[in-house]
């Protein structure tokens, strides 16, 4: 099947097995540029596995992943990042003993191209590239209200700001697709409200498509334009939030077999 050029992301019949265990099977869905899609499902349904497959941490045993018509299968994780897929993690993964600014600048690595010798000798290429990257990173920190913490260790930030820093780090590369893994985990309702506004703003400002895993249904129903529901490694439903709410199989998966 030829990839449809209109779609940004196309996942086709994706599957992965760990040893004899089938973690994902026949997962097929697509995303358009600038769309916010929610990936939901009970614990252990395989949501994070989908993220790990898209970003190349795992290699699929079956199926294909296409981004803008190019296959991501077999590509290394850092190459996939360079071709426009950035992510955050369920349990925040920052570079704890680096400063907030350096956390973002690490991800700006590929926007600089001086070699180690030029860097070590502090030749003009170093100053030019670093000035550009630092400027870019500071602007990103500004968007996420982290400017005043730029020189602090990432580990010293409170939880909510660590989440924001992770998103800032992901966005520095101007990705086409942003994967958010439970961005609202551990947040109170007020923080979740603020996060929803941030996610919408990120989409509008950067024109990035966002695929998010989330258990907070208010957030999911509030900002996702479409939902993909996973259960036991398979897609059991796709559609708008309104359609999903009415879907019997989804309600069954969440509430148990006898509920309907």
């Amino acid at each position, binding site marked *: 099947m030829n990839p449809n050029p209109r779609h940004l992301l196309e996942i086709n019949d994706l599957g992965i097995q760990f040893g004899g265990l089938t973690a994902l099977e026949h997962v097929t869905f697509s995303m358009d540029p600038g769309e916010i899609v929610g990936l939901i499902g009970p614990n252990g349904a395989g949501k994070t596995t989908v993220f790990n497959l898209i*970003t190349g*941490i795992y290699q699929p045993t079956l199926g294909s992943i296409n981004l803008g018509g190019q296959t991501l299968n077999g590509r*290394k*994780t*850092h190459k996939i*990042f*360079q071709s426009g897929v*950035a*992510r955050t*993690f369920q349990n925040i*993964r*920052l*570079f*704890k*003993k*680096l400063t907030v600014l*350096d956390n973002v*600048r*690490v*991800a700006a*690595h*590929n926007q*600089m191209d*001086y070699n*180690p010798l030029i*860097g*070590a*000798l*502090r030749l003009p290429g*170093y*100053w030019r*590239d*670093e000035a550009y*990257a630092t400027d870019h990173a500071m602007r990103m920190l500004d968007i996420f209200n982290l400017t005043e913490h730029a020189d602090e260790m990432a580990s010293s930030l409170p939880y909510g700001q660590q989440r924001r820093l992770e998103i800032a*780090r*992901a966005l520095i*590369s101007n990705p086409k697709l942003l994967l958010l893994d439970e961005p609202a985990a551990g947040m109170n309702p007020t923080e979740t409200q603020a996060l929803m506004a941030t996610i919408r703003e990120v989409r509008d400002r950067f024109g990035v498509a966002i695929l998010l895993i989330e258990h907070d249904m208010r957030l999911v129903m509030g900002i996702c334009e479409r939902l993909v529901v996973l259960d036991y490694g398979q897609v059991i439903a796709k559609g708008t939030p309104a359609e999903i709410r009415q879907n019997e199989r989804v309600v069954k998966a969440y509430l148990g077999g006898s509920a309907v």
Partner: protein
Amino acid sequence: MNAATRKSWILNAIALAALSAAFLLPIQSGAVNAYIVGLLITALINIIMATSLNLVCGLLGYLALGHAAFMGVGAYAAALVSIHWNVPLSFPLALLVGGIAAAITGVVIGVPALRLRGDYLAIITLGFGEIVRIIMNNMPILGGARSLRGIPRITTVPVAYVAVIICVTLMFTLGRSRHGRAILSIREDEVAATSSGVPVTYYKILAFTLAAFFAGIAGGLYAHYMGVLNPNRFNFDRSIEYLVMVVLGGMGSITGAIIAAIVLTLLPELLRGLSNYRMLIYSLALILMMLFRPDGLLGTAEFSLVSIGRSFKRTRRSAQNEGRDHSES
């Protein structure tokens, strides 16, 4: 380069010039005896060894136990250049060849070894280190166990000192470039690093190779200081010695590694008067150090004139504020 950076560079250049004068003038005037000179050269060479190992252990966060082998490769390569190839400027050339030979060995060992981590990497680097030593022991051109002789003894304190300044400066600037940040990010979280576009395999090998390169230069200095080389000088014990310096100084701190290298070179000599109890006290010092400062002397921090200036200003300001509070009350 902004104003603050320029200010700190100028400040450091002045401090370095002052330090160099204070350090080199007494030696040039001949006021110090040969024993002290030998000790100083050893300390300077150890500084390069400790700071270069710090690239792998401190910045990359991988435990490597074969660092002395790279020193050995560099020492022999540099010595051969000096012995067989008498051209002007052959000494800097010999050091460079030593560094490059060690770096090549670093790539050869690093590519397979860096697939592993933690204990496994420690063991495999230990094994590779011994293999390199045994190969050197059995190569006729290197003199084998009968030692390689006739190396010109060119390494003096000023020569070693200049080499240390150049090497340490390069390691410092490398650590604070996009490459240094990438290496640090691998230490912090490899999955997050690769997901942020850092080609982790490349940077692991780069860190390992650069560490080997600088160890090779230290080896070249050593060869031209001793005049005689024996492969058994570069055994496992030596690798451990350098590792102790890095751990003691604080993994990831260049200045910490420098201080630890100096202290651990001088300490056994200073304790010489205690004869038999010497190594006992040395070991005890290490144990106490690890008990009371498990992060090493400086942790990951660097000793910096600018930050000292800053904290001095802060203390003065708070002292002034206190004074004002008192006058108000």
